[in-house]
C-alpha cells in the first residue's frame, strides 16, 4: 500500500505493527527545559508523541512549538490542533509552518470551551472570544485538501502539498451512543487516517461499540487506537466516571483501587491489563497512552505490556 505521508506512525501501522502513541503535555511557560526532559524520559517508547493544544483552555506552550522541540530531540510528534482558538486562516498557516518544521501528524479536535480554563486555582481566560470558525471534521477535510490537492479551504493553491497523517478523536460511549459510530464514519469520510479514543476502562462496553464500527466497515478504513489514561486513585476513577462525558469505569475497578494498599502500583497494573485486553479486540491497531503530568511512568508500563522495543522503520 502506498504511503500518503512521511509519518513514522503511518509506516508502523502500514507495516502491520501494533502502534503505540503517548501524550506529552507542554509546559506552562516559555522555557523548553521541562519538555526536553519529558522527551528524554520517553524517547523510544512510542511510535509518535501527541502534543496537546492548550488543553482545557489552559495556556501552555503552543503545540506547534512544543512539537518542534520534540522533533529536534528525535521524537515524532503528533501536533494536536483545536478549533477553539484559531480561524481557518490561522489554522492553515500554522499547518504550513508545522510541516516546514518537520511535523507530519496532526490530530483534529473541537477543543474545550474557554470557560474550562478557569477553575480550581486557575483564573484562566473565561472572558476570551472563542473562534470555532470550522469544526474538527471540517478541519480534517481542510488538511486532506492541503495534502492530496495542495489546495486551501477557500480554493487557492499552495506551492506544494503538506502531507500530514490526519488524526481524529472518537468518544464511543458519548451520548447519543448510536450516532457516535455514524460520526466516526463522517470523520473517516472527511479523511481521518487514524483515531485516538476517549479513555477506555470498560472493555465490554468498548467491545460493543467496536463491533458496530466493524460492521460499518470502519475498522478497515482507519486505524483505531483506544485511549487509556493511567489511573492514580479510586477518587480519580470515580471522578472521571461521574463527570467526564464518555468515560465509563466499571464499579469493580473503582473498588479494586479503593481496597488496594498501593493504589499507584495498582493503577499501573490496571493499565497494563487494559492494554492487553484491547490488543485482543478485532479492529484495534494500537493504543494511545496518557499519564497526565506523570509521563515518566510510561516507559515501565509499555515495557510490562511487552510493547518494547518499538519498530525502527
Amino acid at each position, binding site marked *: 500500500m502506498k504511503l500518503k505521508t512521511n509519518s513514522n506512525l503511518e509506516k508502523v501501522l502500514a507495516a502491520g505493527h501494533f502502534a503505540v502513541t503517548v501524550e506529552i503535555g507542554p509546559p506552562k511557560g516559555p522555557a523548553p527545559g521541562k519538555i526536553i526532559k519529558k522527551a528524554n524520559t520517553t524517547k523510544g517508547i512510542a511510535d509518535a508523541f501527541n502534543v496537546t493544544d492548550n488543553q482545557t483552555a489552559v495556556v501552555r506552550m503552543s503545540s506547534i512549538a512544543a512539537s518542534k522541540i520534540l522533533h529536534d530531540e528525535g521524537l515524532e510528534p503528533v501536533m494536536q490542533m483545536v478549533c477553539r482558538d484559531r480561524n481557518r486562516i490561522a489554522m492553515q498557516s500554522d499547518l504550513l509552518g508545522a510541516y516546514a518544521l518537520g511535523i507530519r501528524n496532526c490530530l483534529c479536535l473541537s*477543543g474545550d470551551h474557554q470557560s474550562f480554563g478557569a477553575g480550581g486555582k486557575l483564573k484562566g481566560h473565561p472572558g476570551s472570544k472563542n473562534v470555532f470558525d470550522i469544526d474538527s471534521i471540517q478541519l480534517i477535510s481542510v488538511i486532506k485538501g492541503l495534502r492530496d490537492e495542495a489546495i486551501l479551504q477557500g480554493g487557492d493553491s499552495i506551492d506544494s502539498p503538506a502531507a500530514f497523517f490526519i488524526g481524529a478523536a472518537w468518544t464511543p460511549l458519548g451520548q447519543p451512543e448510536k450516532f457516535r459510530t455514524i460520526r466516526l464514519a463522517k470523520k473517516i469520510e472527511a479523511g481521518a487516517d487514524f483515531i485516538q479514543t476517549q479513555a477506555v476502562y470498560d472493555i465490554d462496553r468498548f467491545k460493543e461499540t467496536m463491533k458496530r464500527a466493524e460492521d460499518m466497515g470502519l475498522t478497515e478504513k482507519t486505524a483505531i487506537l483506544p485511549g487509556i489514561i493511567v489511573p492514580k486513585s479510586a477518587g480519580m476513577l470515580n471522578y472521571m466516571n461521574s463527570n467526564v462525558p464518555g468515560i465509563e469505569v466499571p464499579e469493580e475497578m473503582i473498588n479494586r483501587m479503593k481496597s488496594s494498599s498501593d493504589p499507584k502500583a495498582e493503577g499501573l497494573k490496571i493499565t497494563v491489563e487494559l492494554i492487553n485486553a484491547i490488543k485482543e479486540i478485532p479492529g484495534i491497531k494500537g493504543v494511545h497512552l496518557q499519564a497526565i503530568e506523570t509521563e515518566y511512568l510510561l516507559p515501565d508500563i509499555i515495557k510490562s505490556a511487552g510493547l518494547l522495543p518499538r519498530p525502527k522503520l
Partner: protein
Amino acid sequence: MIFAEKKPMAEILEKLTGYKKILVVGCATCVSECAVGGEKEVETLAPLISLAFKEKGLHIEVFTATLEKQCEYEFVEEIAEKIENVDVVLSLGCGIGVQALAERFPDKPIYPGVNTSALTIREEAGVWASRCAACGDCTLADTFGYCAVARCAKSLMNGPCGGTRKDGKCELNEENDCIWNLIVERAESRGELDSISKVQKPKSWSNGRHGGPKKVIDEVQRV
C-alpha cells in the same frame, strides 16, 4: 426578542455620580418582555437610585419615561423636552435604543443601564433562552429546526462533540440540552439520519457580524 440583563447597581451608580438630574428611560418592547427595561423596571429603578444617593447624603432628582420603542426616532422625539431638563440619561433600552437616544441628543450623556446579550425566546414565565445568533446564513433546514450556531457552545456544524453528558445535557452548562443530541433524536424520529451523516462544509460567516457592520438599503422601502 432582543434580550438584555440588568447592570449591577454599583456600576450604574458609579456612572451617575456627580449628576443632579437624571432621566431613566425605558422601552416597552423587547426589554419590557424580558422584564429588565419596561415601565415597571423604570419605576422600580428610579426610587432605588434616589434611595442609594440619599444613603450617601446626596439629594438628586430622578425623572422617568418609557417609550413604546426606543429604536424608532418618532418615539424618541417624545422625550425631547424632558431631556432638556436633565444632566444625564440612563437608558434601559437595548444597545440600539441607547444609540438612538445618543444620536438624537448628542449633547447629553446617555448611559446604558442594561447589558444586551442575546436573541431569545421566552420558554416559560421567567425563563429566556438563546435561539438565534444572527449569523446571516440560516441553515435551520439542515438541522431539523434546532440552531447549532446559537445553541451549540462550539457552533459545530458536524456535532456533537465529546462533551455531551449522559443525561443529554451540555458539559458547559448543565441547564442546556446538547443541541446536537436533540438534532440526532429528531433526525432519527423522522427516519432522516442520512441527512446529518454527510459532512457539512465550513460555513461562511461573512453575512453576519464577521463581515463587518451592516448597512442594508432597500430602495423600494426608501421614500
